[in-house]
């Protein structure tokens, strides 16, 4: 169906990071830190877990993936290009006039993008609708939604969190890319989410915490969905904003600033050396 499953996941993750860095630099675009923090999650999902066919993005039996943190789109575009949904060269047009790759994931423009996001707190309810339809129709596809930590401030997510366990949507997986930094500061200072895993657990989700850059751990957990029959799964993925480029890691600045000038070769060298 597609050849990406033959590529080592670490190689896919490396390619995603390389694309994200080059794309942000070329476009002078923000959100590079978010793209780097979610890169490993996307590599495992697309490289090992999701059932999809890049030749048939609308294939009815495909697993659904929603990047609810739509600002991390550069990493998703890089992943989709590597998977063959569109040519890798298209990534050069990211964020440019006339592109099919806007600054937030948009289903109208980009093959393989399931849902348009960008306003936070929309992906999980939409994913619930897809999961519920699958349950009622007896279809085998699963739904994966990646949220940011700052996004967990949105009340709509907690409406959704209440709903999914009540309806036993064990074909639904929410992954929180918990990189600990949101728009104006550290999550614990802006609006503390802790104890985050306990919150999801208390709502009834089969909840696990793991290191979101541990490819083996991600693959192991995501290969055995549902984590508990009859319950939706929530993975709290502890990640590092800007992961893979030492001078970007855990820096609020790289929610906004792309690598410029001599930062670009330094960033790429670090990713290549990883």
């Amino acid at each position, binding site marked *: 169906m597609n050849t990406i499953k033959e590529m080592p996941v670490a190689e896919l993750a490396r390619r995603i990071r390389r694309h994200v860095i080059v794309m942000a630099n070329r476009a002078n675009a923000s959100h590079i830190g978010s793209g780097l923090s979610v890169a490993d999650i996307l590599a495992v999902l697309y490289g090992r877990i999701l059932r999809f066919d890049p030749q048939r993005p609308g294939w009815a039996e495909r697993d659904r993936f929603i990047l609810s943190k739509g600002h991390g789109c550069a990493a998703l575009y890089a992943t989709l290009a590597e998977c063959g949904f569109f040519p890798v060269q298209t990534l050069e047009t990211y964020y440019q006039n006339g592109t099919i790759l806007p600054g937030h994931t948009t289903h109208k423009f980009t093959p393989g993008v399931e849902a348009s996001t960008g306003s936070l707190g*929309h992906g999980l309810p939409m*994913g*619930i*609708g*897809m999961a519920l339809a699958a349950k009622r129709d007896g279809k085998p596809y699963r739904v994966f939604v990646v949220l940011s930590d700052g996004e967990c401030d949105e009340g709509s997510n907690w*409406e959704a969190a209440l709903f999914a366990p009540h309806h036993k949507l064990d074909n639904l997986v929410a992954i929180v890319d918990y990189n600990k930094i949101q728009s104006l500061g550290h999550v614990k200072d802006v609006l503390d989410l802790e104890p985050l895993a306990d919150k999801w657990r208390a709502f009834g989700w089969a909840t696990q915490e793991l290191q979101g850059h541990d490819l083996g751990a991600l693959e192991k957990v995501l290969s055995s969905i549902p984590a508990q029959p009859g319950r939706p799964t929530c993975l709290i993925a502890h990640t590092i904003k800007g992961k893979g480029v030492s001078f970007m890691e855990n820096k609020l600045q790289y929610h906004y600033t792309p690598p410029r000038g001599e930062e670009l070769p330094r960033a790429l060298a670090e990713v290549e050396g990883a």
Partner: protein
Amino acid sequence: MRNAFLDTLFELAQQDERIVFITGDLGYRVVEKLMEQRPLQFLNAGVAEQNLTGLAAGMALSGKVVFTYSIGNFPTMRCLEQIRNDICYHEANVKIVTVGGGFAYGPMGVTHHAIEDLAVMRAMPGLIVVAPGDPVEARAATRALVAHAGPCYLRLGKAGEPTVHTGPIDYRLGKAIRLREGTDLTLISTGGMLQTAAKAAERLASRGVQTRVLSMHTLKPLDESEVLAGARETGAVATLEEHSINGGLGSAVAEVLAETLDVKVPFKRIGMPPIFSPHIGTQEYMLQKHGLNDEAVAAVLLTLVQARNPTSRGSVATL
């Protein structure tokens, strides 16, 4: 209208398993038949309209024909961004249905007065906006909405509205229905004000003024040709709605008239001023307080007819 809608939806749901009805925990003693007899086509999403609307879009994108349902402002304003992004931008086959449009829940207070919903919904790209005038139109609208693959808003009254159409109607989305012919002015009504429009026209007829009455059951897309025909053929136009005069039917008609170079006719928007009502009471009481009873409407229409261009057709000699 609510019962006409629910009865029709139940019939349709029996024939079309794609139909799913999602309520925001409302509909006591009216939704039970669907809930009990078609459980896979029913869902109570709880009092959580953002999630309700988002998941409705998700189900529609998975092949369902989804109806969301609650009181006036709740499934519209509480989740407006979900309507814009999740439903409209995805062209999801979701029909947003409200009960209690206008002052149907008048005694319940301002939170339950739905008098800006049409304006807000009309601004949403790709959303068809429908406000039936009586139970006959509500039944026809329900069928038309299922037949139309795309986002729609259906604004209903509550229960007990009289049947205005005495015979069969030719109901098509986007096409106004002429309830009454007339030569002296055109009164365009949307939603449950249709009965008031008919009565006001009757009052004017007794004074020798012949009113063309249009039921503009579809606010968007607006039947512009019927608006312009009314202006050209009768020489005066008024709109009537249980809604703010800002952004609803009156505004929609005004936009058409203002942008048509060869039409210059007296025009009046009859509806609610854009305020929170200072009154509390039954629908009838509220309408009367805001000049939306048939007697007050007829009086406004008379002044409009008197102001119209004397060279246009029609006669007001008997006034």
